[in-house]
């Protein structure tokens, strides 16, 4: 099983995780820029973080045969702190980098005017840089947050088929699907989605434009949730092609919209192991 985790915060994970992920079949990840748990107080702190996502973290991933790309943005939560807002002025020089495959995570946290402004500005940045956008949907007041998110997306210069709305669940999947956006689901040990509900949603809504991620970070989370969803899909009667579509080809197609995906590490790994990891996908 070849796996592309389209949303995981490897900065917060150990090399043991990288090893276990590789053993489970993970050959590519996208790490969205997000909140680090401790609020930042200056743009410089963001820039060091972005540099790490473009330098050290891909190097670490490569040690374990995993291709690493990132999405960069001012996240919704910290968009509310005026001390952090100058990051928006620095983003253009970062969004041209080779390993940046989307603008993200953007979206809503508390649905404030400051978040409105940051979301709209960054959707425009995505359009300006020919990048798709990864849009986080809020933890609190989720359905209202999704609707407001979709309204802002529709008003933006970015077509909905270049937008991935993430952290969806049973209450938001239908409206998200009807919008034409790509559909992201984060599978967690306690919150967000779990494997069983994920498989049920796939049965109801089909695998088209669906991406499953672990969103593993510094909180209680599990970087192997992607594999567990794949295993349960097979156990519940989905075919290997469906699993490959959800766990590999869909993320390759979405982030491939950037024209910047380089899955060479995964390809080398495939050669080493004698299977065709890129078959039909890249």
């Amino acid at each position, binding site marked *: 099983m070849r796996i592309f985790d389209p949303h995981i915060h490897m900065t917060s994970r150990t090399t043991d995780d990288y090893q276990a992920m590789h053993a489970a079949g993970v050959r590519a990840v996208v790490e969205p820029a997000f909140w680090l748990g401790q609020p930042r107080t200056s743009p410089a702190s963001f820039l060091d973080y972005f540099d790490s996502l473009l*330098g*050290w973290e891909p*190097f670490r991933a490569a040690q374990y045969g995993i291709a690493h790309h990132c999405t960069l943005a001012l996240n919704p939560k910290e968009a509310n702190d005026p001390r952090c807002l100058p990051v928006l002025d620095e983003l253009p*020089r970062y969004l041209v980098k*080779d390993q940046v495959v989307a603008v993200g995570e953007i979206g809503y946290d508390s649905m404030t005017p400051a978040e409105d402004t940051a979301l709209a500005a960054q959707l425009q940045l995505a359009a300006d840089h020919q990048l798709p956008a990864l849009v986080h949907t809020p933890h609190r007041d989720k359905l209202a947050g999704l609707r407001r998110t979709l309204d802002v997306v529709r008003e933006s210069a970015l077509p909905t088929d270049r937008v991935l709305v993430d952290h969806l669940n049973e209450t938001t999947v239908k409206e998200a699907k009807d919008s034409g956006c790509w559909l992201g689901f984060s599978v967690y040990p306690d919150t967000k989605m779990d494997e069983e509900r994920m498989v049920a949603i796939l049965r109801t809504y089909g695998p088209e434009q669906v991406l499953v991620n672990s969103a593993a970070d510094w909180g209680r989370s599990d970087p192997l949730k992607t594999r567990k969803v794949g295993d349960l899909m097979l156990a519940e009667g989905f075919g290997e092609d469906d699993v490959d579509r959800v766990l590999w080809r869909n993320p390759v197609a979405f982030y491939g919209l950037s024209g910047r995906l380089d899955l*060479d*590490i995964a390809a080398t790994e495939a050669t080493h192991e004698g299977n065709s990891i890129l078959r039909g996908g890249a």
Partner: protein
Amino acid sequence: MTHLPAHQATPAADTQGTTLARTPPHDLHAHLADRLGEAARGWLDQALDEAAAHPGAHGPISVWELRLAEAGRRCGPEHADAARILILHAARADTDALTRVYAQGTAAERRAVLHALPHLVPGPQALPLVEDALRTNDTRLLAAAVGPYAARHLDAHHWRHAVLKCLFTGVPVTEVADLERRAHADRELARMLGDYAAERTAAGRPVPEDLHRVLTLTDPTATPPAPAADHGPNGAEGPHGKES
């Protein structure tokens, strides 16, 4: 024509700094032009023209710096280092420009700046970039940092630590430019290597083969380095070396 190794995605294979840093830009261009597809070759030619026409600073992201950033997806990752070196050369990037590009660059862009230093900076002004790279643990940056520019300008203390760091992190010492000349009769380096070997041995861990190779080069009675020291990897019988 210098042979450039084919790109492989394994981190160790990315350490081709010595070759890139030693190849004259004209030869590098010819080498690259033979290997790029038509679209990439056209892109590179235009990028080099832009860089030559607009050298120096043109705001925070000038056109040639944009080209530098996108070289990987335009030329393919296996040719990105060479393309970036050529763009930096065409732009006649000075120490200020190189420092800016390095500071604002991805690891791949930083690597290209390090490779380009011997082509662009005659004096030691750009040493802070080398020292920055030597503080990292990214073996691709370390390998690029120990090229001809470091051989020429890095002081003895930093240079010895760079060699030791290569041994620690598994960067092949063949990446260290001018190793034979700088290691020759370096008693302090020999002491550091001996201590490192002793520490490894005390821990029951193997001593890197490269350590013996460098230790042999430090021998003041060894064949003088010019024109070429005749010490291969077989120099494992170093005075303090212990196989474990």
